[in-house]
């Protein structure tokens, strides 16, 4: 398997190389000067000199014209189709085929037609999806006026206006926006998975263009690099006619397709890359072809079967040659000697090769011709069942589940590892202020959805801590980077909306607004709040920015009372260090923090300090010096800030809930129960990730929690070794342990020298959380697990940063949510909510797997059962290659008489009800272990088929051995025997499908009895068409004679029952002696009993065993714990969380200073 995937990788790389080449090839064709190294776009100058590709996006496979050649090419890349095409061609050689000339060509064309219909349906869906995107409307400025147009008509050089919350139709250069200094906020979670908003700023030279009059005057040229796939890099220049020098353009001015405008009224942008040239599309590689495990087993078995086929043919040919050699002249009536005498020595009659081909054609159907199409169709409809499932429909976003490929349904039933993204997948990316602790008093409850402010407001008025509560609220209202806005331009404070790049701050400020502490105006040097009716103005003296090293943010304000105060908020660890000595509320606050952390809340500690004028002025001098330093400015500023952030008074702490998606903890616990290991791969910080781990119940005190956070390769290696050794015998087994690993450490852990240890350690844990991982690392981690274990991996995510892992994993699932379609486009399945994953796996996965296995096994079974009979008959006809049945009746065996039963098995079979499977995830373990389809099962079925054919052939042979089949003394012929056997075969094969069916719906009945009936109808009609239609003379009158023979009817009762009796007895024995869990549950279900006790009794033993092992492990870990070994989290993590863009285009400080809510914003018309 490892080898296989490396081969696929190789192919993928070659594919990429080819696409890249194609991309670079496209551009030299542009006639323009310098066209091969850069792109030159004129602004407001009519059509572009170079023709660029349109903004039309197509993800469909075929077009009207390309359908036929492309489809045929696709089809004949499949081995089986080539095989049967060869057979069809071989049949054209005169005198070779024992079954006529078109008996393979016709079924093959029928099958190809079915495949074509399926492909057309699938591709039409894609065309419709593309159409929806291409037809989105956008306002563009072309030839001096605004007009609405569809996305597809947007051209390079167009100026577009994008409104708040809209997506960008192409890659744009930001010209100006409705915000001051042409700033705009964008959400790029689609592209890179980062949750915080990003700031982009237009060039000052274009910032003034806020109306069409000014836009019209914008004349110039943009030169930029050729389209490429680098999301974060861009280089270009803007040459304006009225500006003497070219102005550099960088990634700060670029708005990429796929991202979304947020908190900004509007922007003007100039299109630079369109359609498939956009960075988004350049990054979306086509969905790699995934081959499922079942398919691999099937393919290898087909090859083996092919080998058997060749051996059979060789054997028959040699036997035939020997027979010929010995009997050719003796059996004068055959006229064989005359034949050779007539022709040249190379005549087909006597040539070894020709005889071989005869047998090859005779036995070719041992490999089922209809397998591919049956499996394709079954999977196709199974995929529709997924789409149709109402339980997986998300009413909020109006999205049903969607199987984008039908290839992988059965893999869903075998998943052992789930790799999940965090933001947008497990969490909603909505922060809600939930609890706080002020001077040791806790407000709010973890159980209520929203913060209840009654208690707090009461204490604010009457309690002794009232003044501190006031201070607490004031701090939250002033110490942040949020910008208020009144879009309706009314006086009412309720109409204030906030724009924040940090969702945490947004949550806090919004919660304050609910409490009547309304932050409503920001000017470059002050913040004005309405504190429950009274307007207060706080002058912002300094902003000490947040960074992930500092883990805190402070502002120094001058209060209305003319006091200078330092407000500081940050992680508990850093705030606690900076408190004044003997702070009395520390223990209580710590306790509260711990309880917040246990609930998975994101915590912040708040502290304040009153500064004297002298103190402040002294510090200010140092600060100014540092902030104007040439070298190491950031470090110096941080150092100075450190000096003033001391001796804080602890005000309290806040707890913000990172809202989980619905039922995430429940779903995760079900998945864990099903023996699935869960890995969370997130780009977020360790603290945030651990918080979510707790709130999802992935981490808990009942687990052995390990963390890896090492700075160097050597440390990582040593730490991994130690952990592995401590695990001892339990390594690579199921342990109640969890592992948290930091992105940097992960980089070392994935290096070749650590890789094996890391893997050993990671798969010994139930859950693994990887923090700060890049999209590439996500894919690497998945690749590692996929390669080193034999298990099926599933990746689930919602953003473009998950695309890598979604494509790498065996199965990729995309969350089709409010935002973004990137992940969904790369995914194999899309669902609206994480919780639907359980039904997707437990019900659809298990059903699809079991059904598909049955379909595969059954398809082989039915073909072997019929066609191996030609071998038995060969023993009776001197290995001449004569067929026992009429040629067309066997040719349409697969397309008519036995086409429906496998479909019934593949679509309608149900082992247990969906409810039961959802209730008992333990059932999932059965299909996880691939017990339904492996080499052993496969060959058991094949042998079963051979056994059935022996029974059918030899019993029928014995029954008609004396030929006299009628009371009027008449005798039959070879075809009478053939048709009788054929009828029995139809019965046995159809009933065998029934025997393998766990549930018979009315459609199953139709499939089974209908197939049998169809043979009778066909037989009657077919036996009476000669000579009206010049076909099948040998069949004329056959039906009448078959049905008038008593032997036929008596044999019909006896022989199929005899053949199936062994299967029946086997099933019965198996049910009695070695019942599987699934079967027991099924029995209970049929008997209307609750299978709860049963499932539990089967589980308890393993649970207690694992628990024992945990206790042992914990003690070992504690005993061997060295001071250096920080790898174990003792209790819940005192995390903090604060997401804020760092090192952005506009610093936080400046962002605040730039803002003035008193100035009206331009409407942008």
């Amino acid at each position, binding site marked *: 398997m490892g080898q296989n995937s490396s081969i696929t990788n190789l192919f993928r790389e070659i594919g990429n190389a080819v696409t890249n080449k194609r991309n670079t090839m496209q551009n030299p064709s542009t006639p323009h000067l310098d066209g091969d190294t850069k792109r030159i776009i004129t602004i407001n100058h009519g059509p572009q000199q170079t023709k660029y590709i349109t903004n039309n996006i197509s993800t469909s496979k075929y077009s009207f014209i390309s359908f036929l050649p492309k489809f045929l090419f696709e089809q004949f890349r499949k081995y089986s189709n080539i095989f049967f095409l060869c057979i069809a061609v071989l049949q054209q050689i005169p005198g070779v085929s*024992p079954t006529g000339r078109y008996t393979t060509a016709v079924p093959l064309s029928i099958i190809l037609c079915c495949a074509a219909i399926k492909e057309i349906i699938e591709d039409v869906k894609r065309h419709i999806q593309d159409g929806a995107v291409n037809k*989105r*409307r956008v306002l563009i400025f072309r030839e001096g006026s605004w007009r609405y147009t569809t996305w597809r008509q947007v051209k390079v050089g167009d100026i577009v206006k994008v409104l708040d919350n809209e*997506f960008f139709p192409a890659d744009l250069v930001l010209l100006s926006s409705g915000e001051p200094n042409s700033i705009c906020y964008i959400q790029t979670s689609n592209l890179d998975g980062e949750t915080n908003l990003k700031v982009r700023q237009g060039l000052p030279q274009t910032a003034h263009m806020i109306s069409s009059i000014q836009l019209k005057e914008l004349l110039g040229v943009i030169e930029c690099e050729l389209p490429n796939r680098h999301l974060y890099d861009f280089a270009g220049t803007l040459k304006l006619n009225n500006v003497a020098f070219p102005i550099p353009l960088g990634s700060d001015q670029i708005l990429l397709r796929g991202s979304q405008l947020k908190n900004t009224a509007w922007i003007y942008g100039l299109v630079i890359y369109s359609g498939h040239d956009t960075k988004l599309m350049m990054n979306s590689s086509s969905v790699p072809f995934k081959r499922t495990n079942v398919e691999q087993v099937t393919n290898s078995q087909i090859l083996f079967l092919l080998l058997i086929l060749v051996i059979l043919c060789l054997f028959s040919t040699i036997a035939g040659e020997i027979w010929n050699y010995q009997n050719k002249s*003796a*059996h*004068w*009536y*055959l*006229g064989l000697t005359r034949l050779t005498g007539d022709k040249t020595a190379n005549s087909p*009659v006597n040539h070894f090769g020709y005889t071989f081909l005869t047998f090859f054609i005779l036995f070719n159907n041992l490999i089922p011709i209809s397998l591919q199409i049956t499996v394709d169709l079954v999977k196709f409809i199974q995929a529709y069942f997924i789409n*149709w499932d*109402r339980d997986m429909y998300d009413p909020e*976003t109006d*999205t*049903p589940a969607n199987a984008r490929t039908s290839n992988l349904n059965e893999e869903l039933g075998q998943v052992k590892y789930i790799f999940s993204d965090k933001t947008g997948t497990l969490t909603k990316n909505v922060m809600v202020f939930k609890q706080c602790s002020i001077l040791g008093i806790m407000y709010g409850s973890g159980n209520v959805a929203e913060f209840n402010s009654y208690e707090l407001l009461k204490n604010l008025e009457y309690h002794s801590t009232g003044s501190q509560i006031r201070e607490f609220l004031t701090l939250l209202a002033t110490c942040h980077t949020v910008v208020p806005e009144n879009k309706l331009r009314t006086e009412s404070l309720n109409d204030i909306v906030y724009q924040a790049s940090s969702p945490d701050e947004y949550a806090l400020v919004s919660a304050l607004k609910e409490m009547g502490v309304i932050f409503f105006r920001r000017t470059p040097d002050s913040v004005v709040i309405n504190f429950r009716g009274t307007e207060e103005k706080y002058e912002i003296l300094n902003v000490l920015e947040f960074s992930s090293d500092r883990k805190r943010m402070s502002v120094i304000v001058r209060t209305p009372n003319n006091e200078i105060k330092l407000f500081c908020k940050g992680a508990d660890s850093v705030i606690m260090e900076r408190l004044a000595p003997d702070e009395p509320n520390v223990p209580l606050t710590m306790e509260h923090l711990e309880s917040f952390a246990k609930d998975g809340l994101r915590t912040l500690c708040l502290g304040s300090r009153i500064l004297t004028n002298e103190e402040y002025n002294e510090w200010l001098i140092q600060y100014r010096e540092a902030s104007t330093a040439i070298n190491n400015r950031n470090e110096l500023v941080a150092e100075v800030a450190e000096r003033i952030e001391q001796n804080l008074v602890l005000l309290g702490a806040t707890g913000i809930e990172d809202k989980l998606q619905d039922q995430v903890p429940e779903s995760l616990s079900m998945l864990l129960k099903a023996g699935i290991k869960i890995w969370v791969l997130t780009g977020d910080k360790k603290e945030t990730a651990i918080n979510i781990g707790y709130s999802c119940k992935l981490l808990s005190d009942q687990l052995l929690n390990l963390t890896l956070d090492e700075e160097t390769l050597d440390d990582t290696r040593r730490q991994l070794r130690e952990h592995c050794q401590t695990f001892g015998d339990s390594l690579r087994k199921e342990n109640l342990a969890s592992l948290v690993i930091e992105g940097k450490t992960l980089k070392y852990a994935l290096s070749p020298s650590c890789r094996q240890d890391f893997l050993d350690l990671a798969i010994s844990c139930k859950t693994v959380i990887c923090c700060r991982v890049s999209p590439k690392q996500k894919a690497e981690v998945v690749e590692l697990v996929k390669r080193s274990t034999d298990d099926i991996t599933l990746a689930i995510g919602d953003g473009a940063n998950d695309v890598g892992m979604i494509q790498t994993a065996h199965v990729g699932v995309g969350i089709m949510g409010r935002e973004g379609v990137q992940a969904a486009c790369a995914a194999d399945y899309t669902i609206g909510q994480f919780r639907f994953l359980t039904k997707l796996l437990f019900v659809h996965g298990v*059903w699809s797997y079991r059904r598909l296995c049955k379909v595969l096994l059954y398809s082989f079974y039915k073909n072997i059962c019929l066609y191996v009979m030609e071998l038995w008959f060969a023993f*009776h*006809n*001197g290995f*001449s*290659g004569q067929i*026992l049945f009429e040629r067309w009746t066997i040719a349409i065996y697969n397309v008519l008489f036995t086409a429906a039963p496998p479909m019934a098995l593949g679509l309608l079979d*149900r082992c247990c009800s969906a409810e039961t499977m959802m209730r008992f995830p333990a059932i999932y373990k059965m299909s996880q272990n691939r017990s339904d389809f492996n080499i052993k099962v496969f060959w058991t079925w094949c042998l079963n088929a051979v056994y059935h054919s022996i029974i059918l052939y030899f019993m029928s042979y014995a*029954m*008609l051995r*004396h*030929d*006299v*089949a009628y*009371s*009027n*003394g*008449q*005798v*039959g*012929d*070879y075809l009478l025997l*053939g048709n009788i056997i054929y009828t029995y075969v139809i019965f046995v094969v159809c009933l065998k499908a029934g025997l393998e069916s*766990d*549930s*018979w*719906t009315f*459609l199953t009945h139709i499939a089974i009895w209908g197939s049998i009936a169809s043979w009778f109808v066909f037989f009657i009609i077919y036996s009476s068409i000669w*000579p009206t239609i010049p076909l099948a003379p*040998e069949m*004329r*009158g056959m039906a*009448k004679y078959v049905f008038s023979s*008593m*032997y036929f009817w*008596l*044999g019909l009762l*006896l022989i199929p*029952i005899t053949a199936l*009796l062994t299967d029946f007895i086997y099933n019965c024995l198996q049910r*009695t*002696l070695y019942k599987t869990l699934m079967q027991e549950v*099924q029995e209970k279900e*049929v008997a209307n009993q609750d299978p709860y006790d049963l499932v539990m009794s089967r589980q308890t033993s393993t649970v207690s065993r694992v628990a024992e092992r945990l206790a042992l492990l914990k003690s070992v870990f504690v005993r061997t714990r060295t001071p250096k070994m920080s790898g174990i989290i003792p209790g819940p993590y005192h995390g903090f969380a604060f997401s804020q863009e760092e090192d952005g285009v506009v610093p936080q400080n400046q962002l605040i200073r730039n803002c003035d809510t008193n100035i009206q914003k331009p409407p942008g018309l």
Partner: protein
Amino acid sequence: MSNQPATEDNHDEQKSKKPADTAFKQQRLPAWQPIITADTALPVFLIIGLLFIPIGIVLVVTSERVLEYDLDYTDTNCISSTGGNVTCADVLRSNNFTGASCNCTKTITLEQSYTGEVYFYYGLINYYQNHRRYVKSRDDNQLLGKAPPVSADCQPFQTSANGTAYTPCGAIANSKFNDTLTLSFNGTSVPLTNIGIAWTTDKAVKFQNPANPTTYFTNASRPPNWQKTPWDLDTSNNNTNNGYQNEDFIVWMRTAAMPTFRKLYRKLNLTNAGTFQNGLPAGNYVLTVQYNYPVTSFSGRKQFIISTTSWMGGKNPFLGWAYIAVGIICMIAFVIFFALHKTWKIQNRPPT
């Protein structure tokens, strides 16, 4: 996706994408769940056992009631009546199979009287009528009475040396069985008929003589092994049983399934009153063979078979015994599963 501009979206939203709630789409079709456990299997075994054993007994008895006599006349049972104590087979061989004929007689004794319809068969052993090249070597269009050219399938008996098509063409027709077998009882010949020995559909549809059969068949070239033209196959029933419609020919053209086979040759003509009114009485019969058909070259055997039939057909006890055997197996399975069921239940009873 909810953040798209334009009005067309509002239009879309009215049409919810919620899947339809039908039993098929939600995979909730009511289903019968047959579970094969000892409980459900026991009655099945019992019913099969109780049903099959009696059927088997009836079939065995039926088969036993069928009377059958067969004689292998390939060599030693057919000594040339022209003297010299040579077998007819040797006579043919010594004449190099060039159409020489040989006659022999053989006395056979029926121990019992064969009452009712009696059928006479010839049997061939080690004769591969099911060989692929043989089976294929015919032209069904020609047999419908259509004019030449004939299909190349008939090779190597497609056309004669002078280029005209063989009528009928092909290896099957060429090798038509041409021994004549007659039977006499106490000097009177047993009345036999060759009408009604072929499948009715064959005679009515598949085999049709061309227009003007007399001239057609006399002008056409007959297969190399034939000593008569097709129109002279049956001299007694000139119009209805000659040419392609000759029933001996039709029977032969239905190629047998196995290298050991028999074909219906004659029926006892019961319409005649007299000795053979109720069948063949017991006693000595004389079989007269006109021995034309060579089989010894390939160690084949020829048989002459006299048989009555039951409501099922010829004598074949296999089906009866098979029924009995399967019935017994089911009964054994019943007993074993009954025992298993009892012991298993006791073992698996949950401790309460």
